[in-house]
């Protein structure tokens, strides 16, 4: 009887307590997710720098929760992340570098594609939409080059684990399989690989239509649309702050475009440590195209360059030949004349076309 009485008392206490806590939490949760960000997320000084940037950016009308979700929108991940922020806030430990795990990053990407559908379609049609399975289960690739930690620098920069925890075996014999199958269909180069949402700088202003002639001169220079996410430091580096490649062709210094977007491309399409032209995955233009930026020819999202010749070359060039029909790798993948480092003498031996 005594046991039953205690249980009865506990129930009498627990039920109202549960209800009160639920109502209290519900009220708080409702307030937190409906009030202005200035009174909720943005009120924490820890993240004031990030908030300051977003309020100046083109995404300033988005509420924090639209990308970061709520404390309950991403299950345990978001509960843990938000919970740690509160605990650190109480402990007085600055927690201003809000980190998202890969699942959350892909959630942000879903938000990007709500508006940026054209960019998404182009990205899907190009090589940068490769998935983990396309990269890490590619037998030809894996037999040629041993998988290593640095693969994730460009293929899976947001992975929450090391290469050894993603795929096995880490040798060139295979057969390779994922240790965690859930990663297989994830994109290895999501939007945030090249774009930072919390951008520094201001968006382009509306033109001054009272003086349309001055529109060109009223434009501001902005390099902030592209940022490279460096996995080692877990930060985005604005394209304008990325280094310009110093590339050598033997002992000759190649003229490389200073275009910030090209600096971003070079982070992954890079030459070897000696920066010799044409090594590793370097495709920096040389020869007749030396000094060009990658995006002079390639669309940044799809990488498509099929229409690129028309931008500079008239349909019939000065030598009366349509450049698209010349013997280059543009026309034929097996051509010895790689379009990236094509020179005049490749075709004009002794002043005449071969």
């Amino acid at each position, binding site marked *: 009887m005594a046991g039953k009485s205690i249980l*009865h*008392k506990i129930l*009498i*206490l627990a039920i*109202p*307590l549960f209800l*009160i*806590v639920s*109502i*209290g939490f519900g*009220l*708080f949760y409702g*307030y*937190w997710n409906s009030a202005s960000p*200035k*009174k*909720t997320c943005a*009120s*924490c*000084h*820890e993240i*004031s720098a990030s908030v300051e940037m977003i309020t100046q950016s083109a995404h300033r009308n988005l509420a924090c929760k639209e990308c970061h979700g709520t404390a309950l929108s991403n299950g345990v991940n978001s509960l843990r992340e938000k919970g740690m922020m509160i605990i650190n806030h109480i402990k*007085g*430990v*600055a927690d*201003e*570098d809000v980190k998202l795990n890969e699942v959350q990053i892909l959630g942000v990407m879903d938000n990007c594609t709500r508006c940026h559908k054209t960019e998404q379609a182009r990205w899907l049609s190009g090589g940068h939409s490769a998935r983990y399975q396309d990269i890490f289960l590619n037998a030809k690739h894996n037999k*040629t*080059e041993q998988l*290593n930690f*640095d*693969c994730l*620098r*460009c293929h899976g920069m947001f992975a929450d684990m090391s290469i050894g925890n993603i795929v096995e075996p880490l040798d060139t014999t295979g057969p390779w399989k994922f240790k965690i199958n859930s990663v297989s269909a994830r994109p290895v180069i999501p939007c945030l690989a090249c774009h930072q949402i919390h951008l520094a700088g201001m968006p382009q202003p509306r033109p001054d239509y009272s003086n349309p002639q001055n529109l060109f001169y009223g434009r501001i220079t902005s390099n902030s649309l592209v940022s*490279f996410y*460096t996995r*080692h*430091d*877990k*930060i985005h*580096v604005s394209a304008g*702050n*990325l*280094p310009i*490649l110093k590339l050598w062709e033997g002992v000759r210094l190649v003229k490389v475009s200073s275009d910030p977007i090209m600096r971003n491309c*070079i*982070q992954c*399409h*890079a*030459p*070897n*440590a000696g*920066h010799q032209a044409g*090594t*590793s*995955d*370097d495709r920096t233009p040389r020869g007749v195209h030396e000094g060009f930026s990658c995006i002079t020819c390639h669309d940044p999202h799809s990488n498509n360059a099929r229409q690129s010749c028309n931008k500079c070359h008239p349909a019939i060039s000065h030598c009366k030949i349509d450049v698209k029909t010349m013997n280059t790798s543009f026309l034929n993948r097996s051509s010895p004349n790689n379009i990236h480092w094509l020179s005049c003498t490749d075709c004009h031996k002794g002043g005449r076309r071969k």
Partner: protein
Amino acid sequence: MDLPDKLSRRRFMRLAALSAGGIYLFSRCAGPTAEWRFFTSSEARLMDALADQIIPPDEWPGGGESGVTNFIDKQLTGPFLRFQSEYRKGLKGIQDSSETLYHQRFENLNWKEQTSFLELMEAGKMNEPVWADGFDLKFFGLIRDHSMQSYYGSSRHGGNRDNISYKMLKLDYPFIVGQNRYKS
């Protein structure tokens, strides 16, 4: 059986008050935020001057412009929590000693005066009581080390603004090196 009823009523009131208080406290966070995490504005101005003395500006930005103050401020509310009291005591000590020696705040001294002041600190020759037991030497070393860590470390820690030291040293950041060693 009426005991639980009484308790639950009290508890209800207490929890209701706590819930309301919790919401009130969170809304209190919505007030104006401080410019710095740990430093006061006055301390931050002093830190900028100290950082410029440690890493003087030339054709490249010095410690102040490179964000040393921001780095130390950020770290003091993180991994450097244990140095908070040293900084509070040391920065106050510098201002007090500067007032005693020059009747001016440290950041208002001319360059040579600032340098002389810090040379005394570095040599452990400050006379004021606050610097007893070699605290002058120790605090100078602390600021010097943290300034260097800021200037030459990763910008993710709050210093090395725009990777300025890497550019000065002609280091590529991020490092440009391809991994693709085979031809298709």
